């Protein structure tokens, strides 16, 4: 844990350190964007009602890759393919019409598309402080193990959407979105690195690292 704080502190220092002025892309330009979150998690049971679940304990890493349009010292928007993997420790207790099916993620994931927009509201040298908002949709994919716990236990290996199907509802896609507080800085002339944290539907994340590389002409 200490190492993680040290790494975050070093990253913050690197982002906030004064840097010499470099060429800028002031006209909106297209670029590529990507990102990684080591862990998003659904804390407590606040989303349980959405899935007719008694308990949700879901977590896992997230990867993003897409296109972006913006300027080096301004805001940006983009569309990304997102991939949220569910760790094997992720569990959901789904309330069926008659029983509770305890679902453990074996090889489950969410794959979807999300549009985002970064709104900077303050700037310190080359560091932008702002919010990153996004929304999209993701498909539930992969397989889970559903267990009826009783004197005799019964375990089914199921497609992820089928496990939620015991509630009587068919859920193949779920909405995803984000509302994060973010700090971004320019590295070199075209690469913008952003550190953010906050709401990442269907959960929260402490930290997420993103980059965007603009392809436009310098001025």
């Amino acid at each position, binding site marked *: 844990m200490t190492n993680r704080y040290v790494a975050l502190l070093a990253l913050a220092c690197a982002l906030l350190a004064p840097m010499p002025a470099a060429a800028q892309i002031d006209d909106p330009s297209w670029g590529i964007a990507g990102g990684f979150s080591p862990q998003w998690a659904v804390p407590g049971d606040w989303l349980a009602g959405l899935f007719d679940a008694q308990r949700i304990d879901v977590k896992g890493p997230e990867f993003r890759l897409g296109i972006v349009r913006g300027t080096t010292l301004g805001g940006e928007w983009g569309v990304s393919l997102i991939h949220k993997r569910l760790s094997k420790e992720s569990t959901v207790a789904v309330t069926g019409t*008659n*029983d509770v*099916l305890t679902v453990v993620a074996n090889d489950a994931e969410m794959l979807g598309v999300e549009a985002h927009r970064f709104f900077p509201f303050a700037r310190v040298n080359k560091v932008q402080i702002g919010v990153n908002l996004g929304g999209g949709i993701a498909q539930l994919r992969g397989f889970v193990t559903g267990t009826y716990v009783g004197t*005799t*236990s019964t375990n*089914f290996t199921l497609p992820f959407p089928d496990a939620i*199907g015991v509630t*009587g509802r068919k859920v193949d896609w779920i909405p995803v979105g984000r509302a994060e507080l973010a700090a971004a800085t320019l590295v070199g002339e075209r690469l913008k690195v952003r550190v953010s944290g906050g709401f990442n539907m269907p959960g929260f994340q402490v930290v997420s690292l993103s980059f965007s590389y603009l392809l436009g002409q310098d001025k």
Partner: protein
Amino acid sequence: MRNTLTRIAFVVTAAAAAACSPGTLPGSPSPILVGGAGGKYNGSITYRRLGGNYTITEAVQQLKLSLTLRDVNQITGSFQTGESSGTVQGVLTGDMSNGSFDVTVLIVTTARQGGTTSSCEGRGQATGILSGLNLTWTAGSIAYDNCPGLRVSSQADAIAVSPIPDVSPAQASLVITVLGGATVPRGTCAAGVAGYPFTVEMSETAGVNVTFDSRFRIEERHGAGGVSASELDMPFGTINGGTRRTYATCSPVAGTYQAFFSGTDARGNRIRVASPVVTLAP
């Protein structure tokens, strides 16, 4: 030249005539062989009403029965009579030419009450004997849940007419078996607790999709106690034709286990099947 051709034609004609003469045809058809992995039986069946304010046909009806031997000693099949049809699932002792079986019968019978005809869904246990080509079957009591009070018995005799079980392409054929056989030795459950772990396989063999009802039924007997039944939400809605699905079960105590599934196939036929009675050996 002409003489040579005439001689050749004569020889060929004589050879062909000899080849086609009755004396060279197979003298008699090959006998039906039983004892392999299944068979098709034709015979007759009679039902007797034991109770209930319904009337059923108690005259002799034609019986067509197909049986298939599955993993180790499990026997599954389907049958059709003039006014009933159904499935059987159970265990075989011995083999298909010299053995006995104990099966669960799930049956749909046409019954009448006050001028109304009903399709009554019944269930019972049947025992039978396989001896050479002959099959006999006795079901002491078949009870019908959706036709209250109706109980019947049945007695059947049939003869093997083919070693190949009949598979109807007109409706789904859902088969429930226990991998490794219907007798489960003591082992270890997933949590490391001693128990009786086994895997139930559901396979559709006729290439017709089946949509399951929302629940399935499990009946268990633990120790010397009676049968306890529970209904669980069906965790998947369909099984595609020609595919199979499995689920794992583990009981911490000895006894018996049997699961019942029902649904509707893609052609609108009602499908009801059961696993064999699984014996969790002490």
